[in-house]
C-alpha cells in the first residue's frame, strides 16, 4: 500500500524513470524478437532435400568462408555410396559457379550462382515449360525472370558476359545449366543433397512434409547411415540444422545483425540500469525525512528496503505494460528496415515468440531492481533521527564501497581497453563500447570526488566577481558533491557514448580512407556495380592493377590469399627472396594430367625438383610458388624456401613454396600467388577493385557490372558494404544512447529542481529576485553540464585512444585518433538546452503555485 500510495504521490518525478523503463522494455522486446527470429534458414534451393551433407566447416564460424569443398572426384565417390543407402532415391553433388543474369546489360539482383540441373531437384524444382539444359550454351531459368523458352540471355560469369539460350523455366528463382557444363565450370563441391524415396514422388511441395513425424524417423535413419559413410569427411545436416548450409553471405549478414541487436540490447540495459540507479539515488536522498519518519514509527530497515524495491517493481511492471505493446508493434517495421539496410538476409521474418515479451518484462523489472538496489540499501540505513532534522543535509562523505566499486569499474574499463587493442573487426568496436560502459560507471561512481575540484577549476576565472551567483554556484556544487554528481552523470553518459561511437567510426574510416588513397597511387578505380565482384572481362576493360582474392585451406581452416600478375609487383616491397619465381606457368591439375600428382610437378616446368629431405614438409600435389607478407610469415612461421601442404580453393591438395617475403604496407591478403594459378583453382573468384593510372571511361565497362570512380570519390566513399553497415550501426547506437541519455538529463534536472524548492524559497526570502533565482539555477545547471561533458569527453577519449591503438597494432601503421568535435558540440549543446530548460521550467511553475505545498515535506 505504501509503495502504491507513494507512486501515486510522486508519479510526476518518476515519469522519466517510467518512460526509460518503457523504452528499455520496448527495445528489449524488439531486439529479443529479432534475435530469436534471426535463425539460419535452409536455402530455398535445398528445401526439398531432407538431408544435406557438407564439408567440415572451419572451427571459427566468424570466418565466414565456405568450408573447404570436396574435390569433384571425392564428391562423386561419396555420392555413389550415399545413393546406395536404403531410402535414398538420389544423392546429388552440387556444382555451383558464379553466373548472374544480365538484363539490358545490368546485373539482376538476387540469385548470383548457377548450378547443375540435377541439383534443381534438391529445391523441388521441376520444369514448368521447355526441357532440361543439355548443351554448353543452354540454361534453365526461374520463371520469376520472365524469360521465355528460346530467348537469348546474357550471364555474367567470372570470365565475363556469355550468351545462353533458355531451354526451360521452373517456378521460383534460380539458374541451372547442364551437369557437364556446371561440372567443368565449378571448383570443388560445397554440398551433397540427398533425396529420399517419398520426396522423390512428392515433388514441389515435398518441403512441406519434410518435417512430418513419419518423414522425421526416416530422415534420421538416412542421416545416421550417411554419417557412417562420410565419417570425418563431412557433416550431415538434417531438419533445422540444414540452416547451416545457408550462403556464407547470409550467415555474415545475420552475424552483423546479431551484433547490432546485441549491442542495442546491452546498451539499452546498461543505460536503463544507470538511469534507474541515478533516479532512485536521487529520490532516496530527497525522501530521507519521510523514510526517517517511517523508521520512527517502527519500520525496521528491512521494511524500508522492501518498500523502495516494491515501488521499483511496480514501476518496472508499469514500464513493461507500456513498452511491450510498443515493442510488439515496432518489431515488424524494424525487421523490414533491417532487411532493407542489409543487417538481415532477405529470408528474415519475425517469429512472435510469446517468451520474448515475458522475458522483456522480467528484464525490465530486473533492471529496475538492480538500478534501485543501492538506493534501497541506503534508504534502509536512514535512521529515525533523519525525520527530525530541519533540512536534509546533503553529503555524507563518499563511502568506501562506492570508491571501491568505482575502482573496480575503472579496472574493468582498462581491461576492456587492453582487449580492444588486441581484438579485430567488429569485436574491436564491441570492446571499445564495453570500455566506455565501464568508464561511464567509474566516472559516475567517482564523480562526487572528481566534481568539486573540477567545478572549482572551471569557475575559478569568475571567482573574483562581486555577484552572488558565482559564489552560490561554486558553493552549491562544491558542497553538494553527490547531488551534483547525480545530475552530471547522465550528461557524462550522453557525451561519452556519442563522442566515442562517432569517434570510433571516424577513426576507423579515416584510416581506411588514408589507406585507400595511397593504395595504388591511382587516378581512378573500378568497383563492382550490382555484382559481388569484377569479372575478368571487367578487369581487362578497366586496365589497371588488381588482385584476385581466393581462399586456401590449412586443413579446414581458411587462409586468405590473392592472385597477382607481374604488373602488380610495383605495389610490393620484397624483404627476402625474389618475386621472379612467383609466375611460373600455372600448375597442371592432376585431373588434367594423365599421371599422379607427383608426376605433374615436372610438367609445370619447375626449375628444380623439391628434394624430399628429412624435416621437410612432405610435398603433396602440385607445387605453387607464393609470396607471403611479413606479418603472416611471422605468425605462421613460414620462411623463404619453406614448403607447406595446404588445400586449394577447389579442395585439392597443393604444396605452397614460399619464394619471397614482402615488407610494409597493407596487402590484399597474407599469401600472394600467380593470378592464373588462382583462376585455375577457383573458377568463380572475382576481383574486388581495380586501381587504374588513367581515368576509365564508363563506356568501356558497359554491361560488365562495374563502374569507375575517381580516386577522391573512392577514398571518400565507404569502401564496401560492410563500411556502410557499420555506419548505420553507429548511427543507431548513437541515437539510442543519446536518446536515453537526454531522457536521463531531463529527468535528473527536473528532480533536482523539485528537490531544491526549499532552498530556492530561502533564496527568495533573502532578497533574490525571480530573475536571480532562475539565473542561479541556469548557471548551476550549466556548470554541472559542463563538468559532466568534460568528464564524458575524457571517458570517450580514453576509449578512443584504446581503439586507435588497437587499429595501429593490428595494421602496423600509426592510426590517428579522430575526435568528432561536431558531434561533441551538438551533444553538449542539446544537453545544455534541455538541462537548463528542465531545471528552470519547474521553478517558474512553482513560483505560481508555490504557496500551499511544502507543508508535508
Amino acid at each position, binding site marked *: *500500500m*505504501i509503495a502504491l*500510495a*507513494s507512486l*501515486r*504521490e*510522486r508519479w510526476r518525478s518518476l515519469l522519466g524513470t517510467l518512460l526509460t523503463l518503457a523504452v528499455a522494455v520496448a527495445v528489449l522486446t524488439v531486439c529479443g524478437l529479432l534475435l530469436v527470429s534471426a535463425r539460419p534458414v535452409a536455402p530455398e534451393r535445398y528445401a526439398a532435400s531432407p538431408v544435406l551433407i557438407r564439408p567440415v566447416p572451419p572451427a571459427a564460424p566468424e570466418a565466414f568462408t565456405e568450408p573447404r569443398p570436396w574435390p569433384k572426384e571425392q564428391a562423386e565417390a561419396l555420392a555413389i555410396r550415399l545413393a546406395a543407402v536404403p531410402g535414398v532415391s538420389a544423392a546429388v553433388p552440387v556444382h555451383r559457379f558464379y553466373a548472374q543474369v544480365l538484363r539490358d546489360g545490368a546485373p539482376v539482383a538476387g540469385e548470383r550462382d548457377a548450378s547443375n540441373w540435377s541439383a534443381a531437384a534438391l529445391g523441388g524444382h521441376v520444369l514448368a515449360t521447355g526441357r532440361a539444359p543439355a548443351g554448353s550454351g543452354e540454361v534453365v531459368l526461374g520463371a520469376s525472370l520472365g524469360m521465355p523458352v528460346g530467348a537469348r540471355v546474357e550471364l555474367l560469369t567470372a570470365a565475363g558476359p556469355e550468351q545462353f539460350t533458355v531451354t526451360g523455366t521452373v517456378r521460383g528463382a534460380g539458374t541451372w545449366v547442364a551437369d557437364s557444363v556446371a561440372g567443368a565450370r565449378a571448383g570443388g563441391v560445397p554440398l551433397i543433397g540427398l533425396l529420399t524415396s517419398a520426396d522423390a514422388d512428392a515433388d514441389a511441395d515435398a518441403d512441406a512434409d519434410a518435417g512430418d513425424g513419419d518423414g522425421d524417423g526416416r530422415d534420421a535413419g538416412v542421416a545416421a547411415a550417411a554419417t557412417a559413410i562420410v565419417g570425418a569427411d563431412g557433416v550431415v545436416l538434417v531438419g533445422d540444422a540444414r540452416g547451416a548450409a545457408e550462403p556464407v553471405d547470409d550467415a555474415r549478414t545475420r552475424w552483423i545483425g546479431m551484433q547490432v541487436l546485441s549491442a542495442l540490447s546491452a546498451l539499452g540495459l546498461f543505460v536503463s540500469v544507470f538511469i534507474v540507479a541515478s533516479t532512485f539515488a536521487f529520490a532516496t536522498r530527497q525522501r530521507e*525525512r*519521510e523514510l526517517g*519518519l*517511517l*523508521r*520512527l*514509527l*517502527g*519500520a*525496521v*530497515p528491512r*521494511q524500508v528496503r522492501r518498500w523502495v524495491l516494491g515501488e521499483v517493481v511496480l514501476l518496472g511492471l508499469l514500464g513493461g505494460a507500456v513498452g511491450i505493446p510498443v515493442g510488439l508493434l515496432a518489431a515488424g517495421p524494424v525487421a523490414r528496415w533491417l532487411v532493407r539496410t542489409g543487417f538481415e538476409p532477405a529470408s528474415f521474418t519475425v517469429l512472435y515468440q510469446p517468451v520474448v515479451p515475458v522475458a522483456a518484462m522480467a528484464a525490465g523489472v530486473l533492471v529496475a531492481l538492480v538500478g534501485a538496489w543501492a538506493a534501497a540499501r541506503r534508504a534502509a540505513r536512514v*535512521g*529515525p*533521527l533523519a*525525520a*527530525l532534522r530541519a533540512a536534509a543535509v546533503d553529503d555524507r562523505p563518499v563511502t568506501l564501497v562506492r570508491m571501491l566499486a568505482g575502482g573496480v569499474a575503472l579496472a574493468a574499463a582498462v581491461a576492456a581497453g587492453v582487449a580492444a587493442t588486441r581484438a579485430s573487426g567488429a569485436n574491436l568496436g564491441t570492446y571499445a563500447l564495453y570500455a566506455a560502459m565501464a568508464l561511464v560507471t567509474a566516472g559516475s561512481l567517482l564523480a562526487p570526488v572528481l566534481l568539486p575540484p573540477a567545478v572549482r577549476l572551471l569557475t575559478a576565472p569568475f571567482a573574483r566577481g562581486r555577484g552572488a551567483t558565482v559564489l552560490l554556484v561554486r558553493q552549491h556544487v562544491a558542497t553538494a558533491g553527490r547531488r551534483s554528481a547525480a545530475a552530471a552523470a547522465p550528461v557524462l553518459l550522453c557525451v561519452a557514448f556519442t563522442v566515442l561511437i562517432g569517434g570510433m567510426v571516424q577513426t576507423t574510416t579515416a584510416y581506411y580512407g588514408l589507406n585507400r588513397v595511397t593504395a595504388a597511387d591511382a587516378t581512378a578505380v573500378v568497383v563492382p556495380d550490382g555484382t559481388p565482384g569484377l569479372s575478368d572481362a571487367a578487369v581487362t576493360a578497366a586496365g589497371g592493377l588488381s588482385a584476385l582474392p581466393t581462399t586456401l585451406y590449412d586443413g579446414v581452416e581458411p587462409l586468405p590469399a590473392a592472385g597477382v600478375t607481374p604488373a602488380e609487383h610495383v605495389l610490393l616491397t620484397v624483404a627476402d627472396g625474389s618475386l621472379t619465381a612467383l609466375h611460373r606457368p600455372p600448375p597442371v591439375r592432376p585431373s588434367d594430367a594423365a599421371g599422379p600428382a607427383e608426376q605433374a610437378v615436372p610438367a609445370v616446368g619447375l626449375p628444380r625438383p623439391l628434394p624430399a629431405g628429412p624435416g621437410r614438409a612432405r610435398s603433396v600435389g602440385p607445387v605453387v610458388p607464393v609470396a607471403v607478407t611479413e606479418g603472416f610469415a611471422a605468425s605462421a612461421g613460414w620462411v623463404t624456401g619453406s614448403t607447406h601442404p595446404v588445400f586449394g580453393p577447389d579442395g585439392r591438395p597443393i604444396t605452397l613454396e614460399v619464394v619471397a617475403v614482402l615488407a610494409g604496407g597493407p596487402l590484399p591478403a597474407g599469401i600472394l600467388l600467380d593470378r592464373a594459378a588462382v583462376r585455375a583453382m577457383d573458377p568463380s573468384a572475382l576481383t574486388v577493385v581495380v586501381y587504374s593510372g588513367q581515368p576509365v571511361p564508363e563506356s568501356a565497362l558497359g554491361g560488365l557490372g562495374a563502374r569507375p570512380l575517381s580516386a577522391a570519390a573512392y577514398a571518400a566513399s565507404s569502401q564496401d558494404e560492410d563500411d556502410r553497415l557499420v555506419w548505420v550501426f553507429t548511427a543507431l547506437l548513437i541515437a539510442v544512447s543519446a536518446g536515453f541519455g537526454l531522457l536521463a538529463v531531463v529527468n535528473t534536472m527536473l528532480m533536482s529542481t523539485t528537490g531544491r524548492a526549499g532552498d530556492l524559497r530561502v533564496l527568495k526570502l533573502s532578497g533574490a529576485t525571480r530573475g536571480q533565482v532562475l539565473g542561479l539555477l541556469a548557471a548551476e545547471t550549466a556548470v554541472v553540464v559542463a563538468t559532466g561533458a568534460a568528464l564524458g569527453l575524457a571517458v570517450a577519449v580514453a576509449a578512443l585512444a584504446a581503439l586507435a591503438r588497437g587499429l595501429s597494432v593490428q595494421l602496423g601503421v600509426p592510426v590517428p585518433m579522430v575526435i568528432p568535435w561536431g558531434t561533441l558540440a551538438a551533444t553538449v549543446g542539446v544537453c545544455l538546452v534541455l538541462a537548463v530548460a528542465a531545471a528552470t521550467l519547474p521553478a517558474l511553475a512553482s513560483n505560481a503555485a508555490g504557496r*500551499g*505545498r511544502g*507543508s*508535508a*515535506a
Partner: protein
Amino acid sequence: MTSTATVRLHAVRKTYRTGAHTVTALDGVSAEFTAGSFTAVMGASGSGKSTLLQCAAGLDTVDSGQITVDGTDLAGLSEHARTLLRRDRIGFVFQAYNLVGALTAAQNTALPLRLARRAPQGAAVAQALAEVGLAERAGHYPAQLSGGEQQRVAIARALITRPAVLFADEPTGALDSTSSAVVLAALRRLVDGHGQTVVMVTHDPAAAAVADRVLVLADGRLVDEITGADPARIAARLAAGAVAA
C-alpha cells in the same frame, strides 16, 4: 526493577563531538515519568531537552547511565529491537507534523499498525481520529488539512498502538495560539481520559502549564521542577533560573 515509572532515566550522560569540541548535552540526568502523568520538559535552546527526549525514546544512544521504558532497559537492545520497542510501546509527535504526504489522515493514522503487520481495524482508526476531533476528516490528505489538524492526525497516529508513553517534541511550535490550544487540550484529554503517559518538550510556558509537572533543564542538568503552576509562574521561574544559572 521495582519502579512503577513508565520511563525512568538514571544518571544519563550524553556528549556530542563536533570537530575538536565536545558538547555535553546531558550531564547526569535522572528523572522518572510515572504512568498517567503529563510532564513538560523546558529549557533554553541547547539545554539538552530535545536530546533528553530522543534518548528516552531510544532514538539516540547514551554514553552512560540507564534508561528503562515500560520496564525494558534500552542499553541492551539492538537497533532492531529498539525499532520494535518504538513501534509497539512509544508514540511520537513532533513540531513538523511528519505525516506521509501520499497517505490520507486515516492511512497515516493506521501506518504504525501496518508497519507492525497488524491488521488495521477501521474502528480503531476512526476512534483514534475521533479522540482528536477529526472523525470527519479521515479521507483527507495532509495537504488538505490545516497545521493544527495535521498535528492532531499525528497525535491520533501516535495513539493507535496504545503506547506506554507518548513523546511530544514542541508539538505546538509551528501552530498559532488557537490551534495550539486545541492540540494541547487533546493531549490533556488523553492523560485524563485514558491514563496516557505524556512527555512533552516545549519552550512555551502556556503549553507547559497544561502539564502536571514541569522539568527545567539547563546545560544538560535538571535545575528545577515545578508542579501545578500557571504560565505566568512558570515563565517567572524560568527567568529566575536563567538568572541563577
